[in-house]
């Protein structure tokens, strides 16, 4: 092979190798290997046929977080982590300039949205939804955070919030 041809073969082989590698990696999903994007919390998230108290509680929590995050203009994931510890809440308040009153309003709004979503999904009877909605609109911030974190408690111990209506809870839950 003459030197000029060798030079052409070398450059040609380099181009083919580089393009082949890029093509194979692209075909294997190389351009889309990234973390999944957070969903818009203001976008309605359909409940997926919840069965049993724990699943209802999970979806209730997520709806509440979505509702509150939408009000605050953050992702529900950021809000969930912010509510994990008092220190995290403090850092969140500083970073986003959100005081306790604003946070409380947003979380209550989130809980109301969760009750609406639960009712719409048929997971909560309208008879329970009404008083529950009225209750969550008034509860203090710390209690509201507790409810978002563990919605089961609102369903388990609804009697303490609902008074006489609480006894009907188990009966009306699907």
């Amino acid at each position, binding site marked *: 092979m003459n*030197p*000029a041809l*060798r*030079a*052409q073969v*070398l*450059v040609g*082989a*380099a*181009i083919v*190798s*580089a*393009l082949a*590698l*890029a093509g194979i*990696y*692209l075909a*294997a*999903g*190389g*351009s889309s*290997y*990234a*973390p*999944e*994007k*957070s*969903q818009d919390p203001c976008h309605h998230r359909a409940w997926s046929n919840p069965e049993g108290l*724990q*699943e209802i*509680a*999970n979806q209730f*929590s*997520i709806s509440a*977080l979505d509702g509150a995050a939408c009000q605050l203009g953050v*992702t*529900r*994931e*950021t809000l*969930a*982590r912010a*509510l*994990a*510890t008092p*220190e*995290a809440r403090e*850092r969140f308040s500083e970073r986003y300039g959100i005081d306790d009153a604003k946070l409380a309003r947003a979380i209550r709004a989130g809980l109301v949205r969760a009750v609406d979503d639960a009712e719409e999904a048929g997971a909560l009877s309208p008879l329970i939804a009404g008083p529950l909605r009225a209750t969550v609109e008034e509860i203090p911030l710390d209690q509201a955070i507790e409810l978002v*974190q*563990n*919605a*089961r408690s609102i369903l388990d111990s609804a009697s303490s919030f609902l008074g006489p209506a609480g006894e009907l809870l188990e009966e009306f839950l699907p």
Partner: protein
Amino acid sequence: MSAATPRPRVAALALAVGLVLADSSVVILALPDIYRDLDTSIAGVTWVLISFNLVMALAAVPAALLARRVGPARAAAVGLAIFAGAGLACGIADNLSTLILARCVQALGGAAAVTAALELLPASVGSERRATAIWATAGATGAALGPAVGGILTELVSWQSIFLIQVPVALAAAVPILAVAKHEAATGVLRTEVRRTGRPHLAANIALAMVSAAIAAALFLLVLLLIEGWRLTPIGAAVVVTVMPLAAILGSRLSPLVPSARARAAAGAILVSGGLGGLALLPKAEVALTLPPQILVGVGLALVLSALTETALGGRAPQAIHGGWTISARHAGVVIGLLALTPIFTADIAQQRDDAINAGTAVILDSKVNPLIKIDLAQKIEDRLEGETGKVPTLGPAFEPLPSDPGDRADVEQLRDELQEQLNRGATHAFSPSFGLAALLGLLALIPIGLSRRVEL
């Protein structure tokens, strides 16, 4: 120069060149440890690497001029002594400023030793062309082996050992050179009169700078991805990046088969860019997937660095000064690559870290595990995130201890794996734009390589 027999002298000179040029990359695998030990930032620790390369870039040509004035053997011996002393200072430095200052002094000594070596080699091997080949090969071998050696030392001993071990090696290399220096002084032969032929080869040196920027980025970013992103140990990362020098050996065997330096330079630049492009498009966080890109970069760097160095030095004199220009171009390229890519990379990693954590939190929120376990996990994850700001966090310990209930345990293990997958995605994706830009830099080197036909090659 009959003071020492040629073979040990050549070995000492090659060792000196390899040692000094290895230093431009030897700390790459130690950076994460230095970063943690000296409690600094990614941008700050990068200066341990940048400072050495910047001073090398600035000092190479003046050092070559000085070597010709005071005598190359004396310059090489003194340079190696300074290099060794500064290496000792690096090894005992307990803060970032001292370490960076010592690295600058190390580069000053190194620049004198490397450029003077090129002046001394022709007399020792009897041929300017062979001297250039030995000099270029020693430098490329040192630069390619540096990260692996640094990684192994960091893992087995400490990052400080990288510098401390250089002290006896540099002094050992200085001994045979010192004998030549004494001979120089005794005979009064302090400088050699040689013809001056031509200005520095602009196209080849510009191409060298661009390709070196791309290669530095390849090494630096890959090591950070492996250690900080995918959590490999330094020794594990050292084993992985050894593929690059091994491929470089293969590339150096291809070189003699193709006489055209321009073709070798072009093919090398394309392979380096192709490898970097592959690293920018990694489809999964798996070490095996880094191997084909590394092979392309390794073969490419051997082809392109030797071809461009050969072109820059070919038919030019004094060799030390033109060699100084190539050293200057290469290290300037490393500095440009690191300075241009580090801010992009640090911004990307912060963004991807947040995205990955959000994605991981979403996985936990959407899971069907017991809400009490979710709350506990959220609290532990938040605590770990607070302790690991600005980097890819290690969240595995947040899942310990695993629940005793077998059902809950399986759910939590699955959550942990899914969260880790999101972190891997984030870390890998954070490096993509920087690898992509480095690939572009390598491709842009084709312009001066192409122009060099008309300029001079």
